């Protein structure tokens, strides 16, 4: 069975489990929406201020709250399950890839729900051609997925995992946040999103390579 | 050298380093005791 086929099976399995448990959709997405609500409540009543920070808040919420999608229970495997996969001959790198791909898809759904919410709540000024930000959103989802999956592997079976994994992901996702947040600004100044997008592609690829290469060593029986 | 920000910077640096050395020394003593 090829690497690609193994990764696809893992991807489908993860999405199926998520479909049954609904952790990402019914827990993490509402969590992100609540966060979006908290922000204006803490700020002075100033619609101009809100419309300025709106897009930025979308990216921050996506990163800080979306990362929990990568740590979801349905993605965590007990050491017994990992052992079973290993005995079935599943390449750990394929497992990593499949899981990251599933997380990326779920993160896209997260963004698809949070983005309109942000537009409604913050009323950002319309920028012609704002849809061009979409590639950046896809890359942000992919990048956060690989970083989060790697962090989840690093903190697997640790008791403090629920706080430690977010702590690890947050600073590592800054190289995604800065170019993504730049998106609308680039569109407005007619500079285009090519350079931010390429930068994000580089980040995603670099972390993905590390994740794939270290998947085998990180696979342990403990 | 009497500028307060300069004094603060140097003092904080030296004190922090000394404090870290002190913790190393304390740990060293503890390890010796545990023998």
């Amino acid at each position, binding site marked *: 069975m090829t690497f690609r086929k193994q990764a696809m099976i893992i991807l489908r399995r993860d999405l199926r489990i998520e479909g049954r448990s609904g952790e990402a959709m019914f827990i993490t997405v509402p969590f992100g929406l609540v966060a979006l609500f908290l922000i204006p409540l803490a700020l002075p009543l100033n619609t101009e201020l809100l419309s300025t920070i709106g897009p930025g808040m979308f990216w921050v919420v996506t990163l800080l709250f979306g990362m929990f999608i990568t740590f979801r229970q349905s993605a965590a495997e007990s050491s017994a399950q990992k052992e079973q996969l290993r005995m079935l001959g599943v390449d750990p790198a394929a497992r990593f890839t499949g899981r990251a791909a599933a997380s990326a898809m779920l993160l896209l759904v997260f963004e698809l729900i949070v983005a309109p919410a942000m537009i409604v709540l913050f009323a950002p000024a319309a920028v012609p051609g704002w849809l061009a930000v979409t590639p950046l959103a896809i890359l942000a989802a992919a990048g956060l997925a690989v970083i989060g999956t790697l962090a989840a592997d690093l903190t697997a079976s640790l008791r403090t995992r629920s706080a430690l994994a977010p702590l690890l992901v947050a600073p590592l996702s800054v190289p995604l946040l800065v170019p993504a947040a730049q998106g609308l600004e680039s569109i407005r100044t007619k500079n285009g999103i090519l350079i931010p997008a390429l930068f994000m592609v580089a*980040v995603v690829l670099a972390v993905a390579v590390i994740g794939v290469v270290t998947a085998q060593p990180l696979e342990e029986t*403990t | 050298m009497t500028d307060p*920000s300069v004094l603060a*910077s140097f003092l904080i640096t030296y004190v922090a380093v000394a404090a870290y050395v002190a913790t190393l020394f304390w740990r060293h003593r503890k390890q010796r005791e545990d023998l």
Partner: protein
Amino acid sequence: MKPRYALLGLATIGMVYGFSWASRMPGDAVQGESARIISVHVPTAWLAFLAFGMTAVFGIAWLVTKRAKLDHLAAASAEVGVLFTGLALVTGMIWGKATWGIAWDWGDARLASTAMMFFVYLGYLALRRATPDPVQRARRSAVLGAVGALQVPLVYFSVNIWRTLHQTQSVRPDGASLPTETLISMLVNLAAFTVLYLGLLLWRADQLRVEEARLAQTHLTPNAGAAVVPPKLQPGS
């Protein structure tokens, strides 16, 4: 005498000498007296990044050779690195406030990447503290160290490309256009702090080696405690 004590002794002498140079160097025409701060700020910042890089290097070396000493050096470098990163940030903020009136410049790529590195360090140390098994700990921290070493320069570049466009990069002297005494002061302190780093690194790494050896001896396996089982309570009883 163990090399670490010799290094620390040398470092102390170097830092005293460096302090004398820092007092002697002239104040800057633009910045005034606060220019002296570079005598501690530049060395601590340089060491912060050096220690971070060495953490990654030692970690990768461990992944290749599996020699425990390399893991201890990586962890020790991270600890010492956190200290220097914190100092670099604090002295940088004091300097910024004294010279330009702002403690934190959001357009400065160096500040942003130093701060992010600080958090990656903290995460690294937290991960180590949370992982009881030594081999697992070494392996996981090595991977985190490598990812961190990749991401921090990327933070620097991303902030540099997109957030310093409209701001004049605050003039922090890092060129040969400095007066000689300032340059000497900076270099003497740089050398002294580097020797300090080496001394602290070796000492801490050795302590970690002893700690790990001790823990390995205590045989933390479940035995008698496993016999204690909570009572099974029936509902309504």
